[in-house]
């Protein structure tokens, strides 16, 4: 059981990294990856929302959607968005410091594709509650890792002289491509042992 969970975690984090392998959550990946500190906070906000999503998706799948499978997509979106909003209000009241650190990112990511992707993938794989939560942690960790590495590289590129023709999105995409290639190396991680 424990090895299974570890495998789910590692696989979601580096081998099938959400950003670099599945292309999910690219908007924040390119949008807020210009400083390491912001990128890290964005990553943590993602972990937070992913955990809530995993729980909601498991709950809906186990108790509601058996009777109406065609409502899956609609109910995922609405339930996740409103739960996140609710938890956001609770945090604002209970821990203003945490809210200041994560708050501004929460509305941005409630319906981003990484979040919905996690709900759909976890459903398709038939994960239970614990597995879903571990999967969410791994996926969130992977998103944070990719964001922070990207931000680190982009901080460095600001100090360099870059030809005007490649500046902006083109450069970011090519950096992401090289990063994605590097992450492909993890694919052989478990097959050898």
């Amino acid at each position, binding site marked *: 059981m424990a090895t299974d969970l570890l495998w789910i975690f590692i696989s979601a984090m580096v081998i099938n990294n959400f950003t*670099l*392998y*599945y*292309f*999910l*959550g*690219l*908007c924040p990946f*390119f949008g807020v990856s210009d400083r390491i500190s912001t990128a890290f906070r964005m990553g943590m906000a993602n972990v937070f929302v992913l955990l809530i999503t995993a729980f909601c998706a498991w709950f809906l799948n186990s108790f509601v959607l058996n009777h109406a499978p*065609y409502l*899956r*997509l*609609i109910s995922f*979106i*609405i339930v996740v*968005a409103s739960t996140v909003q609710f938890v956001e209000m609770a945090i604002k009241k209970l821990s203003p410091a945490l809210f200041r650190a994560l708050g501004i990112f929460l509305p941005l990511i409630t*319906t*981003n*594709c990484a979040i*919905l*992707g996690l709900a*759909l*993938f976890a459903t*398709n794989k038939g994960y239970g509650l614990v597995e879903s939560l571990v999967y969410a942690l791994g996926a969130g960790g992977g998103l944070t890792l990719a964001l922070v590495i990207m931000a680190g590289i982009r901080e460095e590129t600001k100090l360099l002289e870059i030809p*005007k*023709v*490649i500046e*902006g*999105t*083109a*450069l*970011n*995409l*090519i950096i*992401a*491509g*090289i990063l*994605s*290639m590097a992450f*492909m190396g993890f694919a052989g991680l478990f097959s050898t042992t």
Partner: protein
Amino acid sequence: MKNTVEASRYRAEFVKGLWKENPVFVAVLGMCPALAVTNTAINGIAMGGATLFVLTFSSLLVSSFRKLIPKEVRITTFVIIIATFVTIVDFLLQAFMPAIHKELGAFVALIVVNCLILGRQEAFAFKNPVRLAVVDALGMSLGFSFALFCLGAIREILGNGSLFGITLFGPDFEPWIVMILPPGGFLSLGFLLLFFNWLKQRQEKKGVENGY
């Protein structure tokens, strides 16, 4: 007279999505599906077609109900309308094109969160009459499909040596496998954007030399 003005307006709204405001190449919207499913040209077209269906019908509905939808809850309403059409297209593909549905996997469902679709509802369909909204949606989604086809074709030709599953080169061709793997998506869009930047820069330079 009025008719010609109107006709040119329709044409302008239709054409802008194809090239000048192309959602992928210019606005860089909806990148997740654009990169994730374009490992072959046919997948790119299928994704484009599914997006066309969803965007056109969502725009049609949003635009017809634009006076009834309260402004405060408009985003939620858009999302529910979009999600409904995505569910329909998901079931249609599953029923009539199971092979394609399997290839695209969860990415059909993820059309819901394609920012291009929500963006068009918010920026255009909610403010404009039905016919104009549909024309805009058609133009935008054709531009999106075109971009997806370009990406898919480039990746398939380089990564597999084929187009639409037909082998193009002789047995001596060494496929560039990385292009059909995830890094190829980032790289090919990156280099395409680089190429467009270069074109634009060259045009601007020419403009300066000619004294514009």
